């Protein structure tokens, strides 16, 4: 196109990154947080009672008792057990009239627990592909398209990077553009397997509902159910027969599960078509040493006969490939140290996008200073960069602040917390319009330092699970959250000091009062106010 192959790939890399960079940054940040979604859930719901030594079979029976007593005409229900990372015993149900509900139960008594309503970490994680305030399909299309741009940016980036091996460890600080390029390269190349995997598997997740449904339709027409049944290692879904038959109490099925697996690792129990001839009960558990992560036993709900064992079905290579890729993306199999490595890779990915955007702005700003005028697009991107790269983390901190500060009984509590997040983000996006850009960066960093650094203190004032207590009790989820918040606050503080020092040394331009005369004498027209 414009000149050589490398040059056109450079153009493609720049534009694919620039157009969706902010959205991708949002996806990487929320996605990375998603690796700790249940931990964040726990911090955001400090009222929950931990299961401790409660027996799995006991908890399932308590849940069964609750549902059969509380819900008339139940059609299907499920129990999520507090196993592994999951702290809550949750029961959710649907009845024949179409109503549904979800309750958190005390794992020892089986009685409902009043827990503050919150989107929790789950919501942050789901926003990573569902966004928010947008119809689901629209959001999926946007994130799919962004992921496609990301794939192109990765491939073209590899093509363009001339010294990918020589520059592998290279980072030269304090060299303005060169340093930003070095950081961008390091954040991109070092976790490259992760970036490629996460992008491609992300595309695969949404392929069927957005970009590539034609491939399924091309062979199955309108009968997508067959496709899902053939692909899945779970039992086929059956419709209710319409015939009411007495249900087998779960205790019989539990005995069989106890024999095959032992109840200890069971994470979920699902009852479909309750009270009907075609009732089905399935038990699922995680495999801790296998990428595929989950296996299921499906039983006939009337006779208690084992109908399907997901482990028994031999999966073909293409199916295994899909499953492995999707499992790698979700990282459900990961123990906590590995989870931290996932989180690190995700944050590096966000950093890759951020440094790419900053690099573009820095390069164009240097050119603008030479020419004496700045393009409106540059000013827009500079403001957007500050407001997104620092603004989004601030907004997420505000989400956590709202969780602690909002009264437990407020109506629409979960939605209000999210609204706080987006309002805060909107403010941080608008803020750079009113300040010189470099100042805006520093000021936003101060705010981020305060937002994260003070979070454990807010926690201490509003709950009993503050840092001193959680460290004393060995509650590493709560303590870990507070400590991580402190770490982010400290990092933001360091960055703020560093940038301010650079500014006062006159190395960085900012209009407004500056004690040292700036190095560039050329007047800039139409630059940031």
């Amino acid at each position, binding site marked *: *196109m414009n000149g050589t192959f490398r040059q056109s*790939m450079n153009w493609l890399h720049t534009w694919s990154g620039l157009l969706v960079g902010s959205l991708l940054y949002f996806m990487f940040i929320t996605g990375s947080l998603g690796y700790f979604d249940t931990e964040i859930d726990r911090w955001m719901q400090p009222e929950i009672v931990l299961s401790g030594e409660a027996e799995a079979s006991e908890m399932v029976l308590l849940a069964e008792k609750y549902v059969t007593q509380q819900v008339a005409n139940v059609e299907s229900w499920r129990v999520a057990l507090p196993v592994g990372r999951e702290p809550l015993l949750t029961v959710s149900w649907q009845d024949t009239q179409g109503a549904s509900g979800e309750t958190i139960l005390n794992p020892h008594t089986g009685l409902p627990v009043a827990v503050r309503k919150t989107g929790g970490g789950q919501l942050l994680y789901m926003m990573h592909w569902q966004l928010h305030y947008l119809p689901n399909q629209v959001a999926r299309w946007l994130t799919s398209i962004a992921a496609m741009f990301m794939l192109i940016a990765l491939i073209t980036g590899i093509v363009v990077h001339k010294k990918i091996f020589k520059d592998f460890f290279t980072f030269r600080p304090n060299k303005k553009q060169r340093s930003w390029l070095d950081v961008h390269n390091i954040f991109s190349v070092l976790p490259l397997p992760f970036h490629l995997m996460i992008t491609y598997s992300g595309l695969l997740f949404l392929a069927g509902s957005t970009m590539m449904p034609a491939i399924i339709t091309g*062979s*199955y027409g309108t009968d997508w159910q067959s496709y899902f049944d053939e692909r899945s290692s779970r039992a086929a879904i059956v419709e209710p027969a319409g015939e009411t038959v007495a249900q087998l109490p779960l205790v019989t099925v539990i005995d069989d599960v106890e024999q095959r697996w032992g109840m200890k690792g069971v994470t979920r129990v699902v009852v479909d078509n309750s009270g009907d001839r075609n009732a089905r009960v399935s038990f699922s558990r995680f495999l801790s040493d296998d990428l595929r992560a989950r296996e299921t036993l499906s039983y006939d709900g009337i006779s208690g006969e084992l109908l399907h064992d997901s482990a028994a079905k031999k999966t073909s290579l293409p199916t295994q490939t899909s499953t492995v890729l999707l499992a790698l993306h979700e990282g459900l199999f990961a123990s906590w140290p590995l989870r931290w490595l996932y989180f690190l890779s995700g944050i590096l990915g966000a950093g890759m996008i951020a440094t790419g955007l900053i690099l573009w702005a820095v390069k164009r700003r240097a050119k603008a200073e030479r020419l004496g005028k700045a393009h409106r697009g540059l000013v827009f991107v500079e403001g957007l960069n500050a407001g997104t790269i620092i603004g989004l983390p601030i907004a997420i901190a505000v989400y956590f602040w709202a969780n602690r500060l909002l009264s437990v009984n407020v109506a629409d509590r979960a939605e209000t917390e999210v609204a706080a997040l987006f309002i805060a983000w909107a403010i941080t996006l608008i803020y750079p319009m009113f300040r010189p850009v470099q100042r805006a960066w520093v000021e936003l960093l101060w705010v981020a330092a305060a937002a994260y650094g003070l979070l454990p203190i807010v926690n201490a004032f509003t709950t009993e699970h503050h840092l001193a207590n959680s460290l004393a009790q060995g509650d590493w989820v709560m303590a870990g959250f507070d400590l991580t918040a402190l770490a982010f606050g400290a990092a933001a503080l360091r960055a703020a000091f560093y940038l301010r020092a650079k500014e006062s040394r006159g190395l960085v331009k900012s209009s407004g009062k500056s004690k040292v005369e700036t190095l560039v004498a050329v007047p800039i027209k139409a630059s940031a106010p």
Partner: protein
Amino acid sequence: MHFFSERFFNPVSSRIAAAVVGGFLLANLLSILLSYVVYSLSPVAKVDGVNVGILSSFLIYAVIIIWVFAARSVRQVWLGLLAAASLSAVGITLLMPENLL
């Protein structure tokens, strides 16, 4: 009018359209064709053929996009897309399972 057409129908926007629209269609066609080839011409199950198609689809699309921007001329791009799409369409009609429509 001349200015208008120059502004919007320039080589860059043409390639963008080729990549986004043409490439998307071609990627779908090629993936469908691939899935047919896999399970029609080998003892692989239908669902696995479809999965191979889906797994490959994004790689195929990425390669097409890169080619669209690397190709020497815009004419080459559109002709290439059309040729590939026509050939795929022929292949698809030949290999399409009978009970589909």
